[in-house]
């Protein structure tokens, strides 16, 4: 996996007047990914998932080169992304959102139960403790916030300060309150299988936020990924991809182990 993007093809599509860029790889059931506040970044975990799923990783409007002043709320952004999904001819998707993208994914699932067959939330930021701030700072500071072991993670490509500032402003403008009664009421009504993952060492969104999802959605699965920080799929790609892939293929039955323990037949 030296070249993570090798399997992926970049394309774009016109949606709601936005040019929406996306990366696509693999065949099989559609797995749509919505990135976190740092923008679209292909990861080894997405590469692993693309061996089983048709992975479509969108860049949400305003996180790339073009500005986005038009989207007024996170609900608007979710609506736009649902239109993007349908513009690709998809009528049923597995939806996965990371951090800020997890909050967008929650809204999309609430708005479009018909479209979202299963929901995966990686350290979602839709429910946050008071005073929680989006990740920002120098690349080193960002890495310390995102990872339990920043020294083990290859440095991310440098981001122009102006672009980083614009993304941060967009997230602040759209993210909404830390506890949004409308979102939480909507989550209570979800009928699709839901998997919520947190790294045990997440310092951006405390893993204890997972309890709120279980309060709202008793049938959701809450998973702790050991020794990962906020960016779970970057830090524990095999663990993340195995859990998500198994969940999407078997949904609730993924709690039943298929691990073989026979030492010698």
């Amino acid at each position: 996996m030296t070249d993570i993007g090798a399997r992926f093809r970049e394309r774009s599509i016109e949606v709601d007047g936005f040019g929406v860029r996306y990366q696509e790889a693999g065949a099989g059931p559609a797995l749509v990914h919505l990135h976190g506040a740092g923008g679209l970044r292909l990861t080894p975990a997405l590469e692993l998932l693309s061996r089983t799923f048709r992975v479509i990783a969108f860049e949400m409007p305003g996180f790339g080169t073009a500005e986005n002043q038009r989207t007024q709320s996170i609900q608007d952004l979710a609506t736009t992304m649902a239109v993007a999904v349908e513009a690709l001819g998809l009528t049923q998707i597995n939806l996965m959102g990371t951090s800020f993208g997890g909050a967008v994914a929650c809204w999309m699932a609430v708005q479009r139960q018909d479209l979202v067959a299963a929901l995966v939330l990686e350290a979602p930021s839709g429910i946050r403790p008071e005073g929680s701030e989006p990740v920002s700072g120098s690349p080193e500071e960002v890495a310390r916030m995102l990872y339990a072991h920043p020294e083990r993670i290859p440095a991310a490509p440098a981001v122009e300060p102006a672009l980083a500032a614009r993304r941060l402003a967009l997230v602040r403008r759209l993210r909404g309150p830390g506890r949004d009664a409308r979102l939480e009421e909507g989550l209570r009504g979800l009928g699709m299988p839901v998997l919520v993952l947190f790294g045990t060492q997440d310092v951006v969104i405390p893993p204890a936020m997972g309890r709120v999802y279980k309060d709202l959605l008793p049938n959701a699965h809450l998973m702790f990924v050991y020794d990962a920080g906020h960016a779970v799929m970057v830090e524990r790609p095999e663990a993340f991809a195995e859990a998500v892939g198994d969940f999407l293929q078997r949904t609730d039955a993924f709690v039943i182990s298929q691990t073989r323990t026979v030492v010698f037949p």
Partner: protein
Amino acid sequence: MKVSYFETGRYRAPSDLPAIWPMPAAAYEPSEGARVYQGMIERITFAEQLGFDWISLSEHHYSPRILTPSPQVAAAYLAAHVHKIKIALLGPIVSHSNPVRVAEELAMLDTISDGRLVVGLLRGTPNETLTYDLNPQETRGRTDEGMELILKAWTEPHPFSWQGRHFRYRTVSVWPRPLQQPHPPTFALGTSREAAEFAARNRIGFGVSYGPFEIMAKATGHYRDECARRGWQPASDQIIFRANIILGETDAQAQRAMEAYPLRAAFSLSEGVARALLELDTRNIAGEMRPATINRPLPVNFVGGPDTVVNQIRRCRELTGAGVIDLGFNTPGTADPAALLDTLSLFGRKVIPHIRDI
């Protein structure tokens, strides 16, 4: 200073038994084994009367030296017979256990004992990797992860899945939860950088054992530095020092006993196994590599009459910061239960009253 009596079971092995590990099961005498467990009650009841704060148990296997391969089973038995003294499991070997099972059993014990459980979690001595076929190179990682999972299993209110490096569980939701909330006083035991940092990060205690005060002070110092770096300071009773003691009526009597002390390795392995384990089972003190203790006798930190031992305990506190000493009374002849009770009595009368303000 709090003081803990380390109850090892006291199996009276014939003196001509070779010092090997594992000890053949054929050497085990069932009726002597039965006496061991009956004697436990007498000893810990006595320790409670003498003012010991804790009774401690540990996990070892395949050996007459410590007859509690399941300290949880022993603790359940003891909990029914004493009513004040705390029961310290120092501790279950996390590296070769199912951490969820450990969390369940400890929560049961805490509840059965009316909230008198103290928990120490550890990696285990090198010989124990052979007990359940564990790769010695994986014990560190399994211990760190297992400890984290045990704390999580005690404190998460909802069923959860665990996607670890060594452990994978899709459904964890332990009943009962511990009586002491959020969980019993818990210690990471060992000298390693990893154990100290785990303890500091999770705001739990730390325990060292069987080493010179100056060297153990490096480990406890690292723990305290890591706590300070994370903005908290451990209480004195959050550091345990486990050690052997030879107590006499006088210094001279203790010295004579020390000279007669059989300096034998606790778990003596064949040379080939010992050599291979020394390569595979890496250990450190506060990050400084050191060979594992294999086929070497454990030191005796406290030797002397009561006054001398009190001074040694004071020095232990000054150097290591420990606020709890956990003592193995290994005076030769104390395999004779009556002699052991005499030594405990001496400690209770002449030492305990003088170490409370240390």
